[in-house]
């Protein structure tokens, strides 16, 4: 090969390496940056008046007087919309009255039909529900039309007209009311709702925008081109309301939505500690965060003492031999066991065999996680102990200290920063693991546990709830901000632990180098 080609190959080789590293860092950026950006939106966002209502009613926080004023302003801004609804109702009533008048005219005859119609008119006037009235009208119209009486034809056509009008309008009205309820919460005159999601409108300005778009535009799928996938087409909804009193609502809402929702910059740090209401639609992630804390601490409490003792044995006491090498192989195998198998083992052993708790519990989960991080802790502690200069040990020994005393007073204190580093990294691992706790500790919904309840109660945990909310929640798209907030919280905790550990390790190595 020519020298130039060899040089070219050499360059290509180096470039490949740089490319691989760049790709890795790029992947890190692509995964983390948008995640943190959207996750921050769970804590810092523009909260609407509804958010403040939620805080007041579900958490009893905030200034009641200020909220009242705020609400009054919002209600005043919403009033024109409500007026339109009322007018629409009124309009429908008038139309219905025309029909009832026509029916009354039909009833001016002396046979059985006339009597029947007169009775029905009575009932029509007493009824309150528009749908029932329409149904009764339909039946009357059918019965009368069967007479085939040409004299009745005009009135019957009028009634048929009104019926089709009213039916159309009722659908339109229902559609509008559904969207308005999603935006504003219950409308004036609605019954008191039980589910929190029916009691409040949109709490976030970004969600408000989305809902507003859904109100303003109808999205449909265009499948006319068979060869391609359907494309979404959106058309303004107000065209459907052209001749109704609801027509102005659209412009009113579009221009005045800020006054109606009164968004305000909100720093909701309590997202981390608040309990969740109505399956995470309102509130925060407190119970899950607390559960993760319990599980992590439990795992550390179990694994660190065992791990350090084992490491002391391996480094200071063990003589090379068959048994020790078997034990070492066990440690490395343990490190390679898939996390889901740890979950199975936790279920079969901790829960079904030695019954640390009747069913899932934080204790069983902590033990399982502890087993999972044990090899990491043993290895980190071993490395830390081996990194202690031999001179320390020899000095202690030469002063007449026994082996155990040397370990306790000289080696362990010197190795402690290293052991701590390993412990912190394993904490991050334990906090982030999901598979081992699925069968042993995690539930989707639950209250935060008090410390003495951890022995026989399962708990929500961040890692499990991320899975649960992202895949099994009934309104996955509505609570993206909660999902992102959870992921960001979990990743943030893990990264903080790691950054702490890495910087600590850098300091130790600097110190050892002198």
């Amino acid at each position: 090969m020519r020298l130039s080609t060899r040089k070219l190959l050499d360059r290509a080789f180096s470039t490949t390496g740089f490319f691989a590293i760049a790709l890795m860092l790029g992947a890190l950026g692509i995964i983390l940056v948008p995640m943190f950006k959207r996750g921050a939106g769970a804590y810092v966002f523009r909260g609407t008046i509804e958010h403040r209502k939620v805080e007041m009613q579900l958490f009893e926080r905030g200034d009641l007087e200020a909220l009242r004023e705020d609400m009054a302003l919002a209600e005043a801004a919403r009033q024109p919309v409500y007026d339109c609804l009322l007018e629409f109702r009124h309009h429908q009533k008038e139309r219905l009255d025309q029909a009832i008048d026509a029916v009354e005219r039909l009833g001016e005859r002396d046979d059985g039909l006339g009597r029947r119609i007169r009775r029905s008119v009575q009932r029509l006037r007493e009824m309150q529900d528009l749908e029932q009235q329409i149904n009764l009208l339909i039946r009357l119209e059918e019965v009368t039309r069967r007479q085939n009486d040409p004299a009745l034809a005009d009135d019957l056509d009028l009634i048929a007209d009104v019926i089709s009008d009213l039916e159309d309008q009722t659908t339109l009205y229902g559609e509008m009311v559904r969207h308005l309820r999603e935006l504003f919460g219950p409308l004036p005159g609605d019954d008191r709702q039980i589910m929190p999601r029916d009691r409040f409108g949109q709490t976030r300005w970004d969600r408000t925008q989305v809902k507003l778009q859904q109100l303003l535009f109808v999205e449909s799928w265009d499948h006319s081109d068979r060869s391609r996938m359907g494309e979404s087409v959106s058309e303004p909804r107000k065209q459907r309301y052209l001749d109704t009193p609801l027509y102005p609502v659209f412009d009113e809402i579009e221009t005045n939505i800020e006054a109606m929702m009164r968004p305000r910059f909100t720093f909701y740090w309590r997202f981390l500690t608040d309990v969740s209401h109505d399956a995470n639609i309102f509130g925060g992630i407190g119970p899950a965060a607390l559960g993760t804390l319990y599980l992590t601490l439990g795992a550390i409490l179990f694994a660190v003492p065992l791990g350090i003792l084992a490491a002391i044995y391996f480094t200071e006491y063990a003589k090379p031999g068959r048994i020790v090498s078997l034990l070492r192989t066990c440690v490395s195998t343990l490190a390679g066991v898939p996390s889901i198998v740890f979950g199975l083992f936790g279920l079969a052993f901790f829960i079904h065999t030695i019954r640390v708790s009747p069913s899932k519990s934080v204790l069983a989960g902590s033990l399982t996680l502890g087993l999972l991080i044990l090899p990491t802790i043993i290895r980190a502690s071993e490395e830390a102990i081996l990194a202690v200069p031999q001179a320390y040990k020899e000095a202690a020994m030469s002063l007449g200290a026994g082996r155990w005393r040397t370990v306790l007073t000289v080696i362990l204190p010197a190795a402690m920063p290293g052991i701590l580093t390993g412990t912190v990294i394993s904490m991050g691992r334990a906090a982030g693991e999901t598979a081992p706790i699925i069968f042993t500790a995690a539930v989707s919904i639950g209250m935060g546990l008090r410390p003495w309840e951890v022995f026989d109660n399962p708990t929500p945990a961040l890692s499990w709830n991320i899975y649960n909310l992202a895949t099994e929640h009934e309104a996955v798209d509505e609570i993206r901000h909660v999902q992102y907030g959870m992921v960001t919280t979990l990743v943030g905790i893990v990264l903080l632990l790691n950054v702490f550990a890495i910087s600590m390790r850098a300091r130790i190595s600097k110190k050892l180098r002198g």
Partner: protein
Amino acid sequence: MTDNHATTSATDAVASPDLILGAGASLRKNVAAKIGQGTLFSVAALATLAVLFIFFFIARDALPYFQARGVREFFLSRQWYPSRDPGQFGALTIFFGSAMVTVGAALVAVPLGIAAAVCLSDVMPFRIRQIAKPFIEVLAAIPSVAYGFFALVVFAPLLQESGNRILTIAWWALATPVFMLLVAVMSDVMTTTITNRKAAGVLRGIATLGLGIGAFWVLRHVGLSLQALSIVTGANALNVSIILGIMALPTVVSVSEDSLQAVGRELREGSYALGATRAEVLWKTVLPAAGSGLFAASMLGIMRALGETMVVWMASGNAAQIPTPWYNVLMPIRTLTATIAGEMGEADHVTGSDRYHVLFAMGLCLLMFCFATNLAAEWFVARQRRRLRGE
């Protein structure tokens, strides 16, 4: 003054009963020391024998399945209907799914990981290496459920909507330099035997042109067929393979880098002294010497991908099927880990049923595979160490 102080502390030390040379050292102390050592041994043994416990308890719950239903159906049948009565437990499709994403992840992680490790250990200046390594560790520390969330919420919709465009761009961006390099090298190799410099130059030009046209045709052909792909669902084997590959990268990188570092300066310097370029030193000397270690790194990476649960559970589509054709990575598949995670919730209510035990059987298979891989990886690392020591 100092002397005096030293003497007192020395006498203190002698008087102290804990010291082995002290007056208090006695049989009793020796026995205590032995007991202490025994305790330490048993703690170490307990901590490490946990793995035997895991084997025992997984196997204990897995065996009833094999006793009741035999081995044939589990490994050979494609009918996975555990909730039917009687249930059908043919896990072939699930084994296939696991194998597929694992191979896919290995294809992503192994070349990239080894390239990155080579770059870190031999190409990059020391300072940049110090900066880059913590980032790789961070990549390893991100919880798997976060990767799964990314795969499901961000990557899957992206792949579904503009997957063909992404694949096409990736193909052009990755394959063009590779093809160009190939053309340059091949045209060179084809004309090295010609001694007449002028003729060689002309011939080389012709060869480059011909090969270049051929390469461009292949590039364009593949690019166009990628462009024409329509991806029905973003939750598929490709998605999962890429994400698992990224997750396995840090393992591959750090183990590979260790083994590259272990090769030592002498081999490298010897090669450089013979006039090799850096690429030749690495390709012909260092990589073969580190071969066993690199193989171990790949195996550990593969193990990580195979044992991963959350990403595949969330983003693989969870359809127990063998794609048609079998290499179609754009179809949803299902893996062992996801099956265990997904079905244990329902199976646990009927503890002791076949449905419960079959999941343990899957766990046992995973465990065995990881155990074997781990032992093999360890053996390869040990072999590299032995060889480098020259034994």
